[in-house]
C-alpha cells in the first residue's frame, strides 16, 4: 500500500464523521432555531425574553468556548454528583454545535417571519385559524422559502466549523489529517487534500441546496434571482 493510499484511507474515515456531524447539527439547529424563532416572533412575553436572552448569549460567546463547556465543563459538573458519568465526544460536539447553530438559524427564520406582511396573518385570523394553524399553514411555508439561501450558508458554515470537533478528540476529517500527518510528516500535501475535500463537499452541498431552492420557488414569495445556479450547475 502506497503512502497516499494510506492517507486517503485514514482521511475517508474522517469524512464520514464530518458529514454525519454536519447533517445532525444542521437539522438539529434548524429545529431549535424554529422553536426559538416562533417563541420570539409569536410567543408570549416570557417566551420572547427567553429566546432573545438565549440568542444573545450564544452569539456573544465563541463557539469553541461553548464546545469546551459542553464537552468538558458540564460533564465535570455532572461527575461531581454521578462519578460514572461520561459523554461521547461526538455527541458533546453535536449538542454544542446544535445549541450554537440554533441561535443563528433562529435569527434567519425570525427575519423571514418578520418580512411577511401582517395582512396575511389578519386574513388567516379572520378565517378563524388559530395562531399555531397560521404559523404552520401560512407564515412558516413562506418564511422557509425566504430564509432558504441563509440555510445554504449555514449548512456550509457548519461543514467547515465541524473541524473544531478535533479539539475534543472527535476523529473527523481535520483530526484524521493531523494524525496521519504525525505519522507521515506530509503535512503540506495532507492539508491541501483536506482543503480540496472540504471545497468539493461545500460545492456539492450548495448545488443540492440550490436545486431544492428552485423546486420551492413560488412567484411573489421568493425571486428567481436567488434561485440561480451554483458553480456546479
Amino acid at each position, binding site marked *: 500500500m502506497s503512502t497516499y493510499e494510506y492517507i486517503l484511507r485514514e482521511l475517508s474515515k474522517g469524512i464520514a464523521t464530518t458529514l454525519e456531524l454536519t447533517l445532525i447539527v444542521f437539522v438539529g439547529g434548524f429545529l431549535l432555531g424554529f422553536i426559538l424563532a416562533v417563541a420570539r416572533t409569536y410567543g408570549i412575553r416570557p417566551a420572547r425574553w427567553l429566546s432573545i436572552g438565549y440568542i444573545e448569549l450564544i452569539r456573544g460567546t465563541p463557539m469553541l468556548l461553548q464546545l469546551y463547556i459542553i464537552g468538558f465543563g458540564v460533564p465535570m459538573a455532572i461527575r461531581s454528583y454521578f462519578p460514572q458519568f461520561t459523554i461521547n465526544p461526538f455527541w458533546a460536539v453535536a449538542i454544542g454545535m446544535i445549541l450554537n447553530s440554533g441561535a443563528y438559524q433562529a435569527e434567519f427564520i425570525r427575519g423571514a417571519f418578520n418580512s411577511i406582511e401582517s395582512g396575511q396573518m389578519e*386574513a388567516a385570523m379572520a378565517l*378563524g385559524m388559530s395562531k399555531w394553524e397560521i404559523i404552520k399553514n*401560512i407564515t412558516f411555508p*413562506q418564511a422557509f422559502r425566504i430564509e432558504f439561501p441563509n440555510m445554504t450558508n449555514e449548512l456550509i458554515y457548519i461543514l467547515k466549523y465541524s473541524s473544531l470537533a478535533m479539539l475534543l478528540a472527535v476523529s473527523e476529517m481535520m483530526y484524521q489529517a493531523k494524525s496521519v500527518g504525525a505519522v507521515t510528516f506530509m503535512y503540506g500535501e495532507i492539508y491541501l487534500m483536506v482543503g480540496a475535500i472540504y471545497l468539493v463537499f461545500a460545492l456539492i452541498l450548495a448545488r443540492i441546496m440550490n436545486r431544492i431552492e428552485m423546486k420551492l420557488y413560488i412567484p*411573489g*414569495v421568493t425571486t428567481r434571482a436567488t434561485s440561480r445556479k451554483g458553480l456546479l450547475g
Partner: protein
Amino acid sequence: MSEEILKIVDLKKRFGKNEVLRGVSFSINKGQTKVVIGPSGAGKSTMLRCINRLVEPDGGKIYFNGVDITSKKVNIMEVRSKIGFVFQHFNLFKHLTALENVKIGLKIVKKMSDKEATERAYKALENVKLSDCAHKYPAQLSGGQQQRVAIARALAMDPEIILFDEPTSALDPELVGEVLDVMKSLSKKHVTMLVVTHEIGFALGVADEILFFYKGIIWERGEPNKIIYNPQKKETKDFLKRIFELYSRGEAE
C-alpha cells in the same frame, strides 16, 4: 328577512389618547347591505375590525345572532369563521394558488375533506368568474382578480355576513368595476354585507342604508337617496361635495 344578524351597541375604542370610536350603535338584518362612508380617521375600519375582534373593543357590545361576542367566554375563532372579511389590500396567501387560497379555510377551519373543499372552492371561484385562474399564484393576478379571489375565499366559508374594508381603494381605476360587479351580484343574492367604501354609485345601487361616520360616531344615517342627494348635516354635505368633486374632475380630464 327581518332576522337580526348583527347588532352593535355603543361601541367604543381608543388608541392611546385618540378616541377612534365614541359610541357607535346600529344593526343589520339578514340579507341587508349597509354601506359605511366617511372621511379618513372617522373610525370606519376600526369599527369593522372590532366586529371580528381583530381589534379588541374597549366598550360596548356586539351581538352576533343574539350572542354577545365581546364576551371573553366566546370562542372568537368560531365566530370569525362565520364572518367573512375582505381587506383593502386583498391579503391573499402568497404561497398558495387562487384555488388553495379559497380551500385553506375550508380544510383547516371547517375540517372539510380535500375533495369537498376543492369542489366548493371551484364553485366560489366561478361565482367571481375566476375559474380559469384557479392555479395561478396571487403575484400572477391583477389587483382586481386578487380581490375577487379574496371575495371567493370569504364566500366559500358560507359566512352569515361579509365585511368589506374599502375593497376597491387599492385598485387601479379600470379594475374597480369588476370587483363592484361581484359585490353587486352578492347583494342581489341577499348576502348580508357591511361595506366601507367611497363608491357612492355602489351605495346608491344596492345599499339598504348608508351610515355616515364622522369623528367616531354615526353622524348621519338613512336611505341612500336621502343621504347622498339630500344630506341634512353640514359635515355630510362637505364630505359628499369632496367626493363628487373628485369624481367630476376625473370625468373632465
